[in-house]
């Protein structure tokens, strides 16, 4: 498993696994919180839940001024990813890739894509970004 030393064993970097607070139902992704961000339960009892790969943009911002090595404009979105089963969606933060600005709005369906997030030296670190579904480009 590739990844930076400090979080190489985090399964949720490569799998759409969320953590559901058993006190209030709030779902954390990708972090597994020790204190529930919504109800404050501590130490929170978090249960792993499987997330779907398709979700909906809740809001987004477009970054225009970034270091030279990053292509701009770079949209960043808050995406609600439903659970595979019952329960609340996870609210995920992620970069958008392969997506033009005119293709996105609040409510746009996006799909989680396994992509190179950054590199640790020469080593690629892969995790999730979001994009509009590929078939919509046809």
């Amino acid at each position, binding site marked *: 498993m590739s990844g930076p030393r400090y979080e190489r064993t985090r399964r949720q970097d490569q799998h759409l696994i969320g953590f559901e607070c058993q006190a209030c139902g709030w779902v954390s992704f990708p972090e597994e919180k020790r204190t529930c961000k919504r109800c404050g339960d501590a130490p929170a009892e978090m249960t792993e839940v499987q997330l779907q790969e398709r979700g909906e943009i809740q809001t987004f911002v477009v970054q225009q001024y970034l270091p030279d090595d990053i292509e701009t404009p770079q949209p960043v979105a808050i995406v609600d990813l439903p659970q595979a089963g019952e329960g609340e969606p996870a609210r995920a933060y992620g970069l958008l890739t392969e997506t033009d600005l005119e293709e996105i709005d609040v409510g746009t369906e996006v799909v989680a894509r396994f992509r*190179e997030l950054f590199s640790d030296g020469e080593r690629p670190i*892969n995790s999730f970004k979001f994009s509009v579904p590929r078939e919509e480009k046809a």
Partner: protein
Amino acid sequence: MVVIDGHGGYVPLYRVDRSEVAAQHGGRGRGESAVPARDENHVTMACEAADNALARSGVEGGNLGAVVTASVSDPFAEHGIAAHVAARLGATGGVRTTDLRGSRCAATDALATAQEFVAANDAPVLVVGVDVLPADPESDEVAEAGAGAGAVVLRPEADSPAAEFAGVGQETTGFVEHHRRHGEAGETGDAKFESRHGVGEAAPAATERALDGATPAKAVAAAPSDRLAGAALGGVDVEQVSTRDRVGDAGAAAAVLDLAHLLETTEAGETALVVAYGAGGAGAVALETAEGVGTADAKSVATYLDASEETTYAKHLEYREPVEYEGVKTP
């Protein structure tokens, strides 16, 4: 019996029109070549193809017995692809992972290795071919440098497989004309000499062993050039299925990507042939297609070919460079 139960491909979104490359560089200018996005690499592309193949099979990633990858362009000497694909799919623990490389025959070697593993262990195996060929502006091959991935799931049996293995052939000659160092463009030699002593000696022998008298209706071929791919099928009267005009040179991955495309577009009950010619010889696999062919349950190669965006020659070169900084500061 070993069957293919699940097939899928992946082609990056971006394409460079080869005529744009020819306008700046000279050389051939027909067709287009796939350009990986800056945040794509061998592992991410392999996972996309694997996801499609697994979606069409009845196999969960965690139930795979082995993951075998084939690539002639893995940039790492030590890092690998197969174990990372396996981990992403949840295939960890007692799972065999194998990275095959060094020749385009890696594709047929991967299929043969997987077939033997399935037969010996009665467990499903994922085969993935993935390549991103380097684009060197000093090379005549710059316009054709492509990228893509293909995947198939092999099982001992399935309710509705896409194909059944009918034969595997190999011809090791040790002959090498086209060769390439890591990250550099390939070097080709005398085309006539290679046609006669390279592909001309290796491919027919491997094909004959795989077919064992059968007559194929369709075939795919991976080779260092379009001409050599055609020559690899030279002795067989067969319809060639190829994405090369839309994808470019996809290395060893071309054999598996084109096989996925073939299985998506062919009819059941046909003999299909996979040939890979490269450094050291040739490999061939004969298949009998079955009712599981088609495009159900996953994105098709045709969808990837149609859903594309044109990019520039500059991006064609730039996007193949390693990402040094992408959103988060590196330690």
